[in-house]
């Protein structure tokens, strides 16, 4: 049976053959090994040109085919099934297709299979075989004809190097567009599902509603289910936790940066800076585990001794640990910004008799302020988008509160809880996650754009 793997290997063989034929043909066109100087380019380039023409169009067809053939085969299989199945909902059809694929994957290991399903599976397999064979024939024909055409065109004057370089440059340019396509992909996928969500729940309800309990909307006969999708408490929780994180990370990070850049000796800096950067390299899931295992119980027992009512999943624990995570982020950005302030400003302050701390407070910080603000904005967007720490240490209930000892929930926690587990892609519950994701994306994007703009303007100021 022809599999995509075999097709790829055959294609590779074709390209290699093309390379050798191209090289030989060019040497022959020059009139032998000794007269190679008569060629426009070195023989390698003629070989590469042939190989590229053999391979590239065929690879393009291959990927397009792979992309479409699943859908086409599925459609054909469905249309062969009894008529009542065709009228089923799309979600049921996809379930059915899954069953068929499972039957194929576990050939023989299952004993009792619905005969109709078995027949459908065989049909599916049959169609897939036809599709693969057709693909093999198409690709080989394409590759072979490219080989013949390019080979016949090789002569002394063919500017093979320029052609090859043009193709490579084109490929590099295609690589660079992936980033744009990723952004477009994010926007389209998130926006599309969000729009479906906003058909069920009005935008104003989502943005300004004060009550969030998506679990209620599972029941289809529920009265007033739209009231459960007010995202304000979720945002408030996100802001509360991010705020606590900022309260921890900005003073510590900034002071650490000032000490490292203005006071610390060379050796101290060489040891302390990498150590602090370890904090940035620890995976967030480890922080989450640390928060749930160590910090939350400590805060709870502290609260109990002080006579406070502390929830076991308090906003304080999650915020504190998130703050620790962000310290190196703030400190390395502030370090950059303080170092970017010209030495002449420091020298001026010292020559007027200012102490170091006075120089820092009255000269360096005001001068570096825009850059530091930009860095803090980047840190805020980091905190808002952080997931694992809050998933593991913060709660699920959406409380509209500013009390750090209470349980709050965040945007990312809600996205995770709504999407992990079984999903139905037409319930507002699942789609709400995408609406939250859209908001998260927009907010962080705006913060990042502002921050990058501020930082760039600031850097230019002193250059």
């Amino acid at each position: 049976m022809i599999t995509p793997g075999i097709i790829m290997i055959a294609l590779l063989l074709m390209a290699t053959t093309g390379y050798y034929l191209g090289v030989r043909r060019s040497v022959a066109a020059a009139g032998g090994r000794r007269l190679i100087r008569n060629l426009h380019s070195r023989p390698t380039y003629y070989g590469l040109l042939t190989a590229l023409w053999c391979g590239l169009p065929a690879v393009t067809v291959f990927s397009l085919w792979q992309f479409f053939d699943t859908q086409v085969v599925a459609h054909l299989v469905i249309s062969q099934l009894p008529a009542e199945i065709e009228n089923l909902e799309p979600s049921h059809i996809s379930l059915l297709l899954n069953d068929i694929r499972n039957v194929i994957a576990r050939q023989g290991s299952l004993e009792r299979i619905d005969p109709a399903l078995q027949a459908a599976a065989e049909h599916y397999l049959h169609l897939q075989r036809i599709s693969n064979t057709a693909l093999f024939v198409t690709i080989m024909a394409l590759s072979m004809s490219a080989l013949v055409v390019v080979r016949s065109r090789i002569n002394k004057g063919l500017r093979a190097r320029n052609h090859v370089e043009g193709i490579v440059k084109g490929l590099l340019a295609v690589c660079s567009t992936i980033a744009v396509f990723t952004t477009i992909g994010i926007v389209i996928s998130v926006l599309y599902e969000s729009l479906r969500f906003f058909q069920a729940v009005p935008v104003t309800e989502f943005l300004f509603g004060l009550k969030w309990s998506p679990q209620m909307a599972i029941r289809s006969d529920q009265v007033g289910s739209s009231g459960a999708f007010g995202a304000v408490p979720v945002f408030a929780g996100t802001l509360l936790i991010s705020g606590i994180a900022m309260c921890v990370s900005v003073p510590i990070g900034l002071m650490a940066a000032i000490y490292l850049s203005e006071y610390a000796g060379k050796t101290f800096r060489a040891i302390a800076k990498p150590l602090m950067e370890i904090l940035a390299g620890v995976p967030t899931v480890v922080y989450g585990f640390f928060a749930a295992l160590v910090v939350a119980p400590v805060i709870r027992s502290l609260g109990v001794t002080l006579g406070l009512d502390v929830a076991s999943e308090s906003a304080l624990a999650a915020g504190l640990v998130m703050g620790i995570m962000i310290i190196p982020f703030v400190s390395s950005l502030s370090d950059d910004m303080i170092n970017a302030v010209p030495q002449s400003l420091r020298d001026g302050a010292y020559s007027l008799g200012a102490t170091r701390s006075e120089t820092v407070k009255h000269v360096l910080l005001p001068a570096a302020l825009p850059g530091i603000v930009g860095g803090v904005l980047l840190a805020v967007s980091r905190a808002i988008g952080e997931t694992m720490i809050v998933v593991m240490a913060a709660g699920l209930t959406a409380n509209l509160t500013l009390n750090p000892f209470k349980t709050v929930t965040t945007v990312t926690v809600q996205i995770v809880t709504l999407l992990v587990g079984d999903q139905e892609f037409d319930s507002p519950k699942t789609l709400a996650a995408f609406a939250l994701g859209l908001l998260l994306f927009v907010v962080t994007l705006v913060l990042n754009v502002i921050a990058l703009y501020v930082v760039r303007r600031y850097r230019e100021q002193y250059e």
Partner: protein
Amino acid sequence: MNKSSVKTIDIVQKGLKRRYRVERRFRRLGLAAIAASLIFLMLLFVSILGNGYSAIWQTHMRLDVYFDPQVFKDVVVSSADYGRLVKGALRSVFPDVSGRGELRKLSAMVSSGAAFQLREMVMEDRGLIGRQSTLWVPADDDVDMFFKGRLGPESGRLTEDQLSWIDHLKERKMIRKQFNRAFFTAGDSREPELSGIRGALYGSFFTLLITLAISFPLGVGTAVYLQEFAPRNRWTDLIEVNINNLAAVPSIVFGLLGLALFLNVFGVPRSAPLAGGLVLTLMTLPTIVIAGRAALQAVPPSIREAALGVGASRMQTVLHHVLPLALPGMLTGTIIGMARALGESAPLLMIGMVAFIVDIPHGFQDPSTVLPVQIYLWADSPERAFVERTSAATMVLLAFLVIMNGLAVWLRRKFERRW
């Protein structure tokens, strides 16, 4: 004049003490900030090491099993009641235990994996039937925790009887700690004493392989194009802004993209390393591109000029001279990006890599999980023994990260060149 200048210096002198005091306080504050972050770091590592080091061992109990032919009568060997053999062996140690509840508590001290171990033995060697054999089987997780001293007798997880039985076993040297092989060779399990990280390690390996195979060529290609060939126009500006923004997009958003696009539109199988690798590729790409561009920028223009001067084309200049010199820097950036991808878990939750998967994955399409997600899953489990496992898995993850980052630092040191 003279009078007033004396006055100024007096004012300065008067304030000096206070100003120096402020200066010292400010300095101490800076030092305290650094100390605080280092203390946090230490606390993090100490708590994980302290909780996790004991997972190297697993408490095992010695059983003298008599492979009673009665048990194998009239049944296929693979589906015989091996639990009965385990119970029989325990009863021979404690002949005076009787009563249903008591017996159940006795057999609860041995892991349910013991029966599987016996089954494996018999499947391998049928000759065992009818013979006596001595073997060490894993103890139940509560016994394990108690034996390691992580669970006090007052916790209530073990009854008085069970505690006395453990003492009895200790006296007869029938219980001991031995190297915890299961942790490195087994997949996930509901029983802490049977669970291991092998499945997660394989999942991480396959996922990272996909990420590396796609993101490295794409990242290098993008960096080379933008740095060496791209014309300065709106389109390239757009690409640059996009890359910088993608580097700061929350990782969970990439998970949403993966769910909506790769899973629901392209039909990539759920929970598969393929899907995870694709999502992580999009996440790592900006890191690699930014590092790659910096590395290309560090190659001095004189190299390019020399190559162009002897008649190389621009493509030849870049591919034969600039790229090889920039490659170590690009590799450093790639390793750092891979290390970040290895520790990433949030986007993988979106594409179903959180499922409970016992089988060890053997391909890019098998359902699997990755190491950080395994940590997340275990951290959620209520059993006390899973705290130890979670910490141990964290130690393994951190060890891999240290190795990767160390490699990056070594590479940078080795190939760093001052032009």
